């Protein structure tokens, strides 16, 4: 009833309807919803591409792609779409936009119009990337077959066609979108917290978005600079990355990974925040070691900027450089360990309920641990000599991204779905979704450790026959997890069809953050009067 009256009160507020509500939107919740829908579209496209990859690799020989370069195009597009058009929009644009203002008691984001443009740059960027897949790329092929890392000179002289220019411009737009979003989040979090909410009282999800926003703000301009150099190398006769004219291909790798390594933390840190909220809620306990958790994220963010060349151990950098990056990379394991143990300590002594969001959070902790410990292995340049550019690396980063990061997104989805839509999801469909993804993704990615140990290189469309056994298993696993994705979509449709209204707080005493004090869904302008935090 309270929800009804609040709705009635705000109904006379000026806000547009129909298509104007979305295209002209300056409302953080509407923009957040658009980001979430966009991420779902991106995730389905990226997921279909991964199905094409696994179908090709299910058996030795070329079955699907008669031109192996098309396979390279698909893997590159899969990576870029999953990173820029699925994980980032879901975590930062989607949940960040929706939940951060609610959690800090702000009526909206600091720069609502900038929020609009940072979303609408993304569909343009996505359109450019999809277009690039059909433009002339490498000799005799269409699309960008240079991987998501687009190493020069494969991305310059190796891909003469305009597909690469389209991809570069696509990444430029996605980068600009993220930078604008980052500025918005930093300003909002620093200036618009409700009275009494000091930085040290902010929910950990807000902390995670703050850290992520700083990573975006510092990393993406470096990518933009590098992409511009790539663009001028390709089109205007410069030679930043061309060794024949005084440039160096390794300059690209240094610049790319100076962006690229913080980028992987950009994709996981908001997940840390979401998992912290979920674990605390369903343990009915405040988070254990709150300050340690917040500053562990800050530490991971800071150290994340000084470890980039651990992606380049085989590139020919000197042994002393490698030794430094081994040391710096291993340091990251310490704050990461603090987070893992603090989550477990939060549950210790708690009163756990295993609702769907909690399942994803628990799954996340275990899978992130596996991805984390293989990261410790890979940090060692000596043994990375054997692993770099093999499937061991593919297994490692899919454990931390495709499993851990995506699990936090689904955890956040089920956690905030009642708040965002006002409807309850189906518990049993949510559980089926979880188990299909958990089992499928483990079957898909765990055998890749073995393939990597045995020496199977990444990014190959066909492989020596000895690798066929584990590849077959991996493909079966990926089909199972794709079935999980279909169950997810079914669950969403089911919830909207069933229309079971969600209370303001469906989770009970454990859910203590401000968004649960508002009706579900919250009114258009959230807070009519600013909440006060004691």
């Amino acid at each position, binding site marked *: 009833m309270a929800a009804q009256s609040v709705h009635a009160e705000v109904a006379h507020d000026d806000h547009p309807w129909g298509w104007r509500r979305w295209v002209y939107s300056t409302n953080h919740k509407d923009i957040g919803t658009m980001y979430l829908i966009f991420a779902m579209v991106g995730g389905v496209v990226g997921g279909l591409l991964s199905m094409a990859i696994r179908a090709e690799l299910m058996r030795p020989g070329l079955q699907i792609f008669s031109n*192996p370069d098309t396979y390279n195009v698909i893997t590159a597009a899969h990576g870029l779409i999953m990173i820029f058009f699925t994980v980032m929009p879901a975590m930062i644009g989607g949940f960040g936009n929706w939940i951060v203002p609610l959690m800090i008691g702000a009526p909206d984001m600091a720069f609502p119009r900038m929020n609009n443009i940072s979303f609408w740059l993304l569909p343009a960027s996505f359109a450019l990337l999809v277009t690039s897949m059909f433009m002339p790329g*490498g*000799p005799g092929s269409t699309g960008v*077959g*240079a991987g998501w890392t687009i*190493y020069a*000179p*494969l991305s310059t*002289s*190796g891909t003469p066609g305009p597909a690469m220019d389209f991809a570069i411009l696509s990444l430029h737009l996605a980068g600009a979108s993220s930078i604008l979003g980052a500025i918005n989040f930093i300003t909002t979090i620093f200036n618009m917290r409700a009275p009494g909410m000091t930085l040290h009282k902010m929910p950990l999800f807000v902390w995670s978005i703050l850290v992520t926003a700083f990573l975006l703000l510092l990393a993406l301009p470096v990518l933009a600079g590098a992409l511009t150099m790539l663009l001028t190398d390709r089109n205007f006769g410069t030679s930043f990355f061309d*060794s024949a004219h005084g440039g160096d*291909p*390794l300059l690209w790798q240094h610049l790319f990974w100076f962006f690229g390594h913080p980028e992987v933390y950009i994709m996981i840190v908001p997940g840390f925040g979401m998992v912290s909220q979920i674990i605390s809620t369903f*343990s009915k*306990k*405040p988070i254990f*070691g709150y300050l340690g958790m917040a500053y562990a994220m800050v530490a991971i963010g800071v150290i994340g900027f000084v470890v980039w060349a651990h992606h380049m151990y*085989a*590139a*020919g950098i000197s*042994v002393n450089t490698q*030794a430094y990056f*081994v040391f710096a990379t*291993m340091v990251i*394991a310490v704050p990461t*360990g*603090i987070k893992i*143990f603090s989550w*477990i*300590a939060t*549950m*210790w*002594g*708690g*009163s*756990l309920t295993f609702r769907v969001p909690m399942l994803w959070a*628990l799954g996340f*902790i275990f899978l992130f641990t*596996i991805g984390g*410990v*293989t990261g*410790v*292995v890979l940090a*060692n340049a*000596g*043994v990375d*000599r*054997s692993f*770099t*550019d093999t499937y061991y690396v593919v297994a490692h980063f899919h454990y931390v991204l495709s499993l851990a990061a995506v699990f936090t997104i689904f955890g956040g989805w089920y956690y905030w779905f009642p708040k965002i839509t006002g409807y309850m999801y189906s518990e049993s469909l949510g559980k089926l979704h979880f188990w299909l993804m958990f089992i499928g993704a483990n079957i898909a990615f765990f055998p890749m450790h073995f393939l990597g*140990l*045995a*020496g*199977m*290189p*990444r*990014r190959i469309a*066909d492989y*020596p026959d*000895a690798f066929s056994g584990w590849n077959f298993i991996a493909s079966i696993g990926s089909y199972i997890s794709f079935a999980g994705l279909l169950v997810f979509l079914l669950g969403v449709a089911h919830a909207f069809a069933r229309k079971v209204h969600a209370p303001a707080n469906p989770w009970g005493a454990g859910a203590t953050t401000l968004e649960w004090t508002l009706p579900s869904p919250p009114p258009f302008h959230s807070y009519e009067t600013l909440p006060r935090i004691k």
Partner: protein
Amino acid sequence: MAILNRMLMYVSGAAMLATASPALAGEGQPSPWQMTFQNAATPIMEQITSFHRFVNIIIVCIALFVLGLMIYVMVRFNEKRNPQPSRTTHNTVLEIAWTVIPVLILVSIAIPSFRLLFAQYDFPKADLTVTATASQWYWTYDYPDYGITFASIIVQDADLKPGQPRLLTVDHELVVPVNKNVIVQVKAVDVIHDWAVPSFGIKIDAVPGRLQRTWFRAERTGMFYGQCSELCGRNHAFMPIAVHVVSDEEFADWLAKHKSSASLDDATAEK
């Protein structure tokens, strides 16, 4: 005897590998259902293998420890068994412990790790220097001290002889003597490629405009295969690396044969 067995295995090739027991480590090439590194053929790869075994034990223990804690909290602290949650949010001793213990574990990993890393870059005096030049999509090998140069190109599936592994076999392998320090200089003419042989524990990018180098000392004769390990375009999957490690006598014969065919002048000058 062991070497003879391995040679036998190589000769019988894929047919035998297909029936080999699961999780068999490959000799010079991967084997079906393999779950470990390929057999080490150089001292460096032996060091990598033992370091990995050491770290792997640590990480498996950590993962099982975390899993055990999770199962314990899920069983012990679920709503039914523990309806009243505690309010504990700090435990200084515990927090110091889970910071300091990981640091100690990392130090114990770092010491052998640095030893391995510096061993890999401890270049011995060369007994033989070869140059591997990458182009899209094959390798060219040079023996600068002997004036031998040849291209090494993948053998198409239709032309494979029985026992030759698909996608790994080349028309002309790099031939090197056993128990000798071989320095490999690696170059590229077009895009970045990577010269890698898993059983030797080496992997080095071939970067246009740079002369990179690595080294190995193969301790067994036989064929050792690798694949280009940096995405290099359309036929990245189809530019294998094959190293044929032979005895000193066989190597001398091979040199004599190829020197004479490579350059008539050199051959007559030597006589």
